């Protein structure tokens, strides 16, 4: 059997990769994908803890996280389309006025 800590380490690595991408990437779509990566890392730790404590609530929480991620992706990508239409760039350094 795989120890719980291995799953948590993997989830931490994924979350750290997401944070790094969020900080170093300049393309707004890639930044968005880094957020999805962070959510995936959290999902893995949810499922691992659900298996560890023998509680199915963790898996239900993962379902909710996925629903919220889907809603977030839909709205965020619509915002990205609006930004691209108004500013004609996807570089976050050029979208600095908080004004579309």
């Amino acid at each position, binding site marked *: *059997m*795989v*120890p*719980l*800590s*291995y*799953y*948590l*380490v*993997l989830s*931490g*690595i*994924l979350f*750290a*990769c*997401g944070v*790094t991408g969020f*900080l*170093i*990437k*300049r393309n707004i*779509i*890639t930044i968005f*994908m*880094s957020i*999805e*990566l962070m959510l*995936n890392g959290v*999902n*893995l730790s949810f*499922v*691992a803890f*659900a*298996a560890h404590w*023998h509680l*199915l*609530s963790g*898996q*239900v929480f993962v*379902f*909710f996280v*996925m*629903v*919220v*991620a*889907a*809603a977030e*992706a839909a*709205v965020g*990508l*619509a915002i*990205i*389309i*609006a930004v*691209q*239409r*108004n500013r004609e760039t*996807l*570089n976050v*350094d050029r979208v600095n006025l908080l004004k579309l």
Partner: protein
Amino acid sequence: MLQLVIFLVFGALCVAGAVNLLVQRHPINSALSLIVVMASLAVEFLLLGAEFVAAVQVIIYAGAIMVLFVFVIMLLNAGEEEATKGSRVAMLLGVPAVVVGSGLVAWVLVEHSSAQSAEALLGAPRTIGWMLFHEFLLPFEITSVLVLIAIIGAVVLASRLDTSTPEPGSRAAQLDKMGSVGQLREAGSPVEPVGAQNRRQG
């Protein structure tokens, strides 16, 4: 033993995909490596006995959300990422900090957590569904409202709002770029105002 091997293989694939997401400069390559991460995470979920979560991971994440991402990347014709000055400083400071931080957390977890192994807890769709509609009924309904709001928000944000007084910068510039106004001017026909064209199209 076999489970440990499967965990290590797909965990390595997962981390490789995540690192590849950071290294690649073109967003479409990042999106494809994110699909690799999500697919191998689904295998990890199966290893933990979460059948329903694994299926939903493949269907919703790798299927729906990533298709949306790839579609938007192609729709906006996103090119290669431009390197900027600030990103290099963030890279030099951030990557070692993240490596040190995650190494510290991994060390603490491996050393000080219980050696108890995570046994597979069977999350069959029937059980999950029963919990979802009994214990978590109110959150479930609230998420349905959230999804409805998200649909409306996405439609409103992504649609072209037909303003009666168009700003000089955006609309006219776009039409000019497409060449419609320029061709009209060359043909000598009177150029009608941009707002009238928009109203007729809308």
